[in-house]
């Protein structure tokens, strides 16, 4: 063979195959979720949906014009957003998608620097094409005028192009240096902005910012390939490339994100946390492990708690029986969420392989659950106070909700526990009936608060059960 192999050809080959593989994955995922009939219905639905949306947008034309005039008068503030976002992202994402494939290519006779530049150019190309396409679609579909859209497109493109290299550079820096740089940048940006208020035209400061960013890009460009933790970069980027939400949902396979080096995590890992535990207090280790387990599932935790809050707030101001229904659903959803997180906490191989002291694990688990329950309880109390329920009944109602929640969570945990330890499912017709009865009482509790006295019965039952 003659001549040097072309880096671009190798890069292009990887990209082409990546696109083909992704297309295949999407095809497979689509095959699982849609057949011909569903596709036809969905197509028609989308078509009608688009017409309805277009019509609705036209009806609200005046709102769009108001938004347009607001954005136009504040457009000089927009670059701040484009500066802050990549700075924030630099804690977890390098921004330039240099993956393990490119790293492996760089171990063959291909230049790593060239490969990195191709990744950067690809990102820029995507920014330009994506922003222009989106801008033009918005311009054609919505009442926004192109007098606003063109400057927005150009500003968005320029700022994103100029922040790509700084984000990559910052990602590589140690946490303290990174925080320091960000602090200095923010102060300088603020000072420039305030200073620019004195100048006419106001766009001058945008021009200054762009020039400063351009110079920074030139300055840091050379250091972009030194002191790079390539392993960390490719771990993050591989996940960004291959963790495709739609495919994950359809295949029911989750690509577990690598632990992120979030800024909070980096600061919080204090020296104190490295010290051995108090061996006599068995719950300490498990409290730490459950906290980690919740943190890993934080999106679901936030979604569920958010859902419960929305449910309670929306139904609180409706008819009384609807508020009761909302509380009923909230207790049910919360208990199911708690039970499902309990099982998930055993999925870690090391924790699964150890003998389980269930009492200790449950105690540590409930420590966190109780904090969430207290928060929801406080919100519920406020809602009860503002919903017009006689305040004299509120303590009794709260006691009813606490006992029902505790009872149902304990029952759910016992069920999950029996599955984990391979026992036959814990079943009790009596407890099932009791759950139904008390959910019924919660349902009518806002209309007939007197039913809340029944909490005493459930409380006594639980005390007896514990004994």
């Amino acid at each position, binding site marked *: 063979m003659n001549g040097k192999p072309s880096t671009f050809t190798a890069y292009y080959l990887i990209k082409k195959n990546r696109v083909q593989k992704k297309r295949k994955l999407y095809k497979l995922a689509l095959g699982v979720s849609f057949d011909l009939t569903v596709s036809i219905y969905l197509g028609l639905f989308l078509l009608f949906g688009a017409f309805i949306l277009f019509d609705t947008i036209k009806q609200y034309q005046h709102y769009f014009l108001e938004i347009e005039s607001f954005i136009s008068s504040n457009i000089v503030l927009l670059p701040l957003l484009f500066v802050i976002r990549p700075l924030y992202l630099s804690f977890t994402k390098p921004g330039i998608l240099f993956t393990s494939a490119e790293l492996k290519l760089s171990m063959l006779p291909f230049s790593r620097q060239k490969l990195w530049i191709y990744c950067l150019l690809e990102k820029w190309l995507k920014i330009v094409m994506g922003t222009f396409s989106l801008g033009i679609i918005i311009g054609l579909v919505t009442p926004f005028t192109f007098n606003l859209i063109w400057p927005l497109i150009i500003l968005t493109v320029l700022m994103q192009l100029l922040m790509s290299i700084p984000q990559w550079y910052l990602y590589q820096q140690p946490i303290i240096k990174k925080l320091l740089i960000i602090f200095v940048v923010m102060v300088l940006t603020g000072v420039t902005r305030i200073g620019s208020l004195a100048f006419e035209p106001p766009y001058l400061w945008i021009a200054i910012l762009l020039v400063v960013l351009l110079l920074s890009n030139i300055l840091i460009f050379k250091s972009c390939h030194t002191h790079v933790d390539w392993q960390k970069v490719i771990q993050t980027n591989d996940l960004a490339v291959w963790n495709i939400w739609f495919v994950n949902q359809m295949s029911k396979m989750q690509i577990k994100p690598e*632990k992120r080096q979030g800024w909070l995590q980096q600061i919080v*890992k204090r020296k104190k946390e*490295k*010290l*051995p*535990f108090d*061996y*006599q207090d*068995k719950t300490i*280790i498990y409290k*730490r*492990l459950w906290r*980690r387990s919740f943190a890993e599932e934080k999106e679901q935790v936030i979604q569920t708690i958010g859902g419960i809050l929305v449910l309670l707030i929306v139904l609180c101001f409706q008819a009384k029986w609807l508020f009761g229904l909302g509380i009923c659903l909230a207790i049910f959803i919360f208990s199911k969420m708690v039970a499902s997180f309990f099982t998930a906490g055993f999925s*870690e*191989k*090391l*924790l*699964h*392989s*150890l*003998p*389980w*002291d*269930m009492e*200790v694990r449950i105690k540590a688990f409930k420590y966190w659950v109780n904090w969430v329950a207290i928060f929801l309880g406080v919100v519920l109390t406020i809602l009860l106070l503002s919903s017009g329920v006689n305040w004299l009944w509120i303590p009794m109602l709260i006691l009813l909700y606490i006992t029902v929640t505790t009872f149902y969570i304990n029952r759910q945990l016992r069920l999950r526990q029996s599955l*984990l*330890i*391979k*026992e036959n499912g814990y079943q009790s017709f009596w407890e099932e009936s009791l759950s139904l009865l008390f959910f019924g009482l919660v349902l009518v509790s806002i209309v007939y608060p007197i039913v809340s006295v029944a909490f005493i019965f459930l409380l006594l039952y639980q005390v007896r059960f514990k004994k």
Partner: protein
Amino acid sequence: MKGLDVNSVSVIIKEEPILDNVSFSLNQGSISALIGHNGAGKSTVMKTIMGWQEKAAGTIEIKGVEQERDFIAFKQNLSYIPEEPFLLSELTAMQHFQLYGQSYQMKEEVLLSRVEYYINKFEIADKLDEYPESLSKGMRQKVQTICALLPDVPLLLIDEPFMGLDVYASDFLQQVLIDKANNGTSILLTSHQLERVQELADSYIMLQQGKVVGNGDMEDFQELTRRFDQ
């Protein structure tokens, strides 16, 4: 009473039989090697004993405690050294040892003296307060190995015991395993390092395509079967 009794265990994954009527037992204080080509089912046997893999049929007992009947007591009877360390990134090496000590209900003074012994022998005394991310793969393997060696259990399962360990650590581990076996622990290990296995184990169980195709004394072991009969 047998140290481990695997009786007619079958495992089916996606309608494909992975283990087919596998039966074998380990005497108390014996070291047995689970031998087979890649994909023979060795890891599945380990996973099934650990309870990670559901069985389609069969029973598994450790010292008379059946897996299905009392899973927690069953787990209390075994510890496991995996081929790849699976340490938790939130705990330091010492905190891992404490977690194992508490889980196996070890007294604190016993735990501390054993930790002291093993960390010196494995030469990781200076790494006790380190998180797994800041340890090399070999160090992580040492931490994981120590974790499993800490409790006195009737059964020790080991997947590729010498993988990632340096020669001194491997020699020390080999000696520890022999001592443990002399004290009554049954050991089931898988390894591709046949020479070392032949030195260590006193019996073997050979798997091929998910079936036991041979077992006996290690000295009678002749050669590994191929993936497909030739």
